[in-house]
């Protein structure tokens, strides 16, 4: 299964992994990105993700399509949350399965690195004394 989802609801890791892997797959690799409690020395209370929804979905589908074509992975699920994400909660889940592990590692790494470069989603960190848009440029 190849599927991309943008959702406001919490990510159900277990359900997403349950579908991964055919009998021909020797490897499943799952990456979970989570909201961290500290950023640049300050305590983060929560995150908010803003999304340009139709374009973000298109860009995600492009990335996943490229990964599937290039590394011949069998199964590729990407779920990205938007709206408020509490500390410790997953903001993104990428699950890939493939006959051999190298393809899964390459594909997952490519997907997360490219998501952070091209998918129109923006993260804002909320502190006790203010809020700041995160720039990944640094």
């Amino acid at each position, binding site marked *: 299964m190849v599927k991309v989802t943008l959702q406001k609801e919490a990510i159900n890791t277990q359900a997403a992994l349950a579908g991964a892997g055919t009998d021909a797959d020797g490897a499943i690799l799952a990456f979970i*990105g989570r909201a961290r409690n500290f950023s640049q020395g300050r305590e983060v209370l929560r995150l908010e*993700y*803003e*999304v*340009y929804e*139709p*374009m*973000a979905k*298109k860009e995600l589908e492009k990335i996943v399509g490229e990964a599937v074509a290039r590394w011949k992975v069998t199964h590729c699920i990407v779920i*990205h949350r938007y709206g408020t994400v509490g500390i410790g909660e997953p*903001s*993104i889940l990428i699950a890939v399965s493939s006959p051999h592990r190298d393809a899964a590692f390459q594909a997952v790494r490519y997907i*997360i690195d490219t*998501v*952070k*470069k*091209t*998918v*129109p*989603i*923006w*993260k*804002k960190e909320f502190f006790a004394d203010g809020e700041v*848009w*995160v*720039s*990944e*440029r640094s």
Partner: protein
Amino acid sequence: MTITLKAFAAAAEACGFRDREFDVPEGDTVGDLVDLLAASYPGLLPMRTDLLIAVNEEYSETGRRLADGDVVAVFPPVSGG
């Protein structure tokens, strides 16, 4: 001609809108539009050189000529994941 302009994240805060109609002269490019925006919304100036532009939900070069009905989005570098 009329385009729909969308702004996101810090760009939306700088412009004070997320979604509006915008009249542009026939023949204008994406670059012309961004110049016009930066002049109208000085809050955009600090992020001017980093701004990304999408036309009809695809990333666009500044040289692209606008067409009536285009949906143009301006936003800062993305930070999802």
